[in-house]
Every structure is written in structure tokens, then in C-alpha cells.
């Protein structure tokens, strides 16, 4: 699936809920299901700053695609990061950099997911983009 398609799937899923409690309950569920990051990456080096909860994010290249794993000590943050990973993990660095991330606005949590929030969504996206840039630079040097 392309990034666009994945975003649309998420938007569809969330459109089924019409009250905030159900949306958050779903987000919490997603958070609980987030596939675990390798414990060795839960170090300061992989910590994203600017979030109220701690978020570790790891990225590596596999067959030209970026594989993202993450964890957080807050479950709602885990839910958010799991959505990001669903959309962006397994895509090429180029696609990640040129993508327009519309789903946070569209799933009706835009308020909560706004960039000025202390949730760190913005920092997470920035960090993923930095990884993508770094991988592109690395591949050019070879």
C-alpha cells in the first residue's frame, strides 16, 4: 500500500467512531498493540526530545525501505506513534520525505494532535524525516 492509501485506511477506521471516548479507547488499544522495539534501542540516543512522555524511535534500512520501530512510556503516545509507523514504516526514504501527512487532521483528533501540543507528534515526524534524509545521503555517498 502507498502512504496515501494507508492514511485513507486510518481515516476510514476512525470515521466509525463518533465520540472522543471511542477514538481514544481505540488509540489506547493501538498503543497496547504496538510491536515492541528492540530493548537495545531504548536508550538516550533514540529518545525524541520535546515530548511529555518518553518516546524512543529506531529506523533502519531493509531492501531500500525504512523500517521503523518505537516505544513510549505513555500509552496514548504509543497509539499515536503506532499510527505513524503504520503509515511510514516500509516506505522508501524518498516517499517519506515527499509525503503530506494529512491523517492526524482528518481523524478528528486534530485538536489533540496539533503541532503545538506537548504530545511530540511534530518532533516524531521531524525525527523520521531526519532519518530519511540521513539514509538518502548515505546511499548517495556509496
Amino acid at each position, binding site marked *: 500500500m502507498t502512504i496515501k492509501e494507508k492514511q485513507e485506511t486510518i481515516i476510514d477506521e476512525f470515521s466509525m467512531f463518533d465520540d*472522543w*471516548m471511542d477514538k*481514544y*479507547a481505540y488509540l*489506547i488499544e493501538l498503543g497496547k498493540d504496538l510491536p515492541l522495539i528492540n530493548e537495545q534501542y531504548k536508550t538516550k540516543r533514540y529518545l525524541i526530545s520535546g515530548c*511529555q*512522555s*518518553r518516546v524512543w524511535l529506531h529506523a533502519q534500512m531493509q531492501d531500500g525501505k525504512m523500517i521503523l520501530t518505537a516505544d513510549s*512510556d*505513555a*500509552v*496514548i*503516545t504509543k497509539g499515536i506513534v503506532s499510527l505513524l509507523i503504520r503509515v511510514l514504516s516500509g516506505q522508501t526514504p524518498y516517499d517519506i520525505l515527499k509525503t503530506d501527512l494529512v491523517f492526524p487532521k482528518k481523524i478528528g483528533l486534530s*485538536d*489533540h494532535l496539533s503541532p503545538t501540543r*506537548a*504530545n511530540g507528534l511534530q518532533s516524531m515526524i521531524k525525527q523520521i524525516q531526519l532519518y530519511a534524509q540521513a539514509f538518502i545521503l548515505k546511499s548517495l555517498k556509496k
Partner: protein
Amino acid sequence: MNFNIEIIRNDFPILNQKVNGKPLVYLDNAATTQKPVQVINRIKQYYEIENSNVHRGVHKLSQIATEKYEQARKYISGFINAKSENEIIFTKGTTDSINILASTFADFVNERDEILVSEMEHHSNLVPWQQLCKKKNANLKVIPVLENGEIDLVGLPSLITPKTKLLAIAHVSNVLGTINPIKEIVKLAHNKNVPVLVDGAQAIAHLPADVQVLDCDFYAFSGHKAYGPMGAGVLYGKEEWLNKLPPYQFGGEMVDSVSFEETIFNVLPYKYEAGTPNVAGALGIEAALKYIESNTIDAIQAYEDDLLEYATSELKKINGIRIVGEAKNKTAVLSCIVEGIHPYDIGTLLDQMGVAVRTGHHCAQPLIDSFGLPGTLRASLAMYNNKEDINAFVSATQKAVNMLK
């Protein structure tokens, strides 16, 4: 008791706001308080009929603004019982006040000297001293905080050494609500000739702050945490200290005469007020403190203490909850955590239910780290909060915990 919660609530326009469709329950008062119409209108009136630059003007408006500005200084001086209005320096806020002191105090700190702070300090009363010590190769010493949230008063005397140059401590902790025994601490410090700065950010709106009774050498607070405007605060300093310290910023008001060769500085309090002062801010603080006075600080404290006690006992009914900070002497701040749940998750859900609290380290990261916590969920009170606010907070927290468990 001239304390009427209904009348008070009516004075605060923002309390009529709805948040996410629900009436606002504002329990983030330690971050900033809301403003009564008396303060909002004072600022408005200033700009509508009195606005002018102060001090050097020959014209009437300038004279009026100057008089009002100096009256505000005098009122504030009386409010904290300073000996003279020359001891009241207008600043941007607590952080500015403390930085002014840390910067101008530098000349009194030498290599291997010590600055003493407590473990519960807000970054604003910690990092300036830490950086000063770094610059001067001096040592930052820390007064430990006990399990219950009180400072280790018994161990304090041994921490004050002949090398100690200053002791900086919060009047009230913004995380734990602890009221520190400032009078005793000042006595211990003065016995060894160590001056004391009190960070009054969380105290000024909640309990009497009498600088002569406390006998502290410096006292800092922000207008915005005491029903006043943002961008305005106070540094109180004993006149003999302020006369000894060098000026901080240069230009405008703080200058007596200037040539390219030399500059002669103005006397107190102007020595510390470079540039056009925030006249509206000073008048706003005055109006805010008058508002406090009109309800009397003792009545406010009694009311908030009752509310704190009620909130604490209600909150404790939630399974797995733990109160962080259980000092005997405590005010207006209620921190807690729920086992196995990150405070941020609860805070997020509380917001959906219209309850505004704060989560995180509250700019007191070393304290939170020493307690081994990921942060706390903090509800903080102001005089306009009522039992309904507490009930809304507690039941929303219960709901959030149910969702997250």
C-alpha cells in the same frame, strides 16, 4: 469572613468558557492564574486614558502615568511589608528576577565557593545558580527533600559552610505544595552570614508573604501567578544588598548621566529598571494584589486549605493512586500518580472532559527524577476554584483511569 466564592467566580470572565463542549474546570493555576475583571479593566483603563512614558516627561499624561506607576510600587511594597519602596524592582517575572540576582551576584562568588539550593527547586531557581557556579568554578550544593516532600531541615545546618555565599529556596514548591519553613531557614543562614533568596512564585497568591517577618534578603514573584498580567513581576531586595550589587541592564531610566567616557547610574529602584518600564504591568500587579487584599489572604488560605484537603481525600478513593508530596505544611498544589499509568495519558483524557491540569516534570526535573517518577498529574488551586471543580476533576480522573487500566 468576607470571602464569597460566588461573587469571586463572577469576577473571572474566563470561567464561563466551554472546553470541548464542557464547562471549563481550570486547575492549572500553578502555571498561571486567570484574571479578574478588576485587573483586566485596570489595564484597559490605563491604555484608554492614562498611557504615557514615565519619569522624564514635562507633560501631564506623563506625570499621571509616573504617579500611578510609583503608587503601584508603593502598594506592592506595603503588600509584602518591605521597608521602603526602593526595595521593589519591577521585572518581567520570577525567572527574570532570579536571573537578575544571579547575574549581579556573580561578583560575590569565587572559585570553590558554594551556592545552596533545595532539591525541589523550579528550573528557574536552579539553572541560574548552576550556570553561575559553572562560570565561577563554584559548587552547587543541594538540600535534600524527604520522602514526604519536606526539606531535610535537620541536615541543613551542616550544609551551610563558611564557603556558602547564598541560599536560594522556594517559599512553596510548585510540584509538592510544600510550604518551606523560610523563617527558620533564614535564621540558620543568617547565623552564618549567608543571604537568602526566596522564590515566592507559588506563595504570593496563597499565603502571607511578609519579607520583614521572613527576614529574607531577596524575594521574587510573578504577577501572572497571582491574578495579575503576564510579563510583569517583582524582585524585592533589602536596600543594603541592592545598593551593593552592580546594575544589570543598561540604558534609559537607569542612567543618571552619560558621556562617551563614562556613565553614572541612577539610584534605587531605577538602577535596575533600564528602558521604558511596563507601566500597565505594574498597575496590573497592583490591581491583582488589591483584589487579593479585598478577599484577605488569610481567608483565601483557609478556603484553599479546605479545598485541598477535600480534593486529597476524594482523590485517594481512586484505586492505585498515590499523592506526591504530603508535607504537614502544604498549600494549593496537589500532585499524584496512578500506578502503572503515565500521567500524560490521564492529563490528555482529562482535557477531553474539560478539566485543565498539568502533567510532566513541572520544570522541576531533578525533583521528579529523585522521586523516580515519569512526572506527576498536578491539580493546582486558586481562590475561584470550588468543590464542583474538585468533583469534576476526581470523577474525570476515575474515568480516565478506567479507560487506561
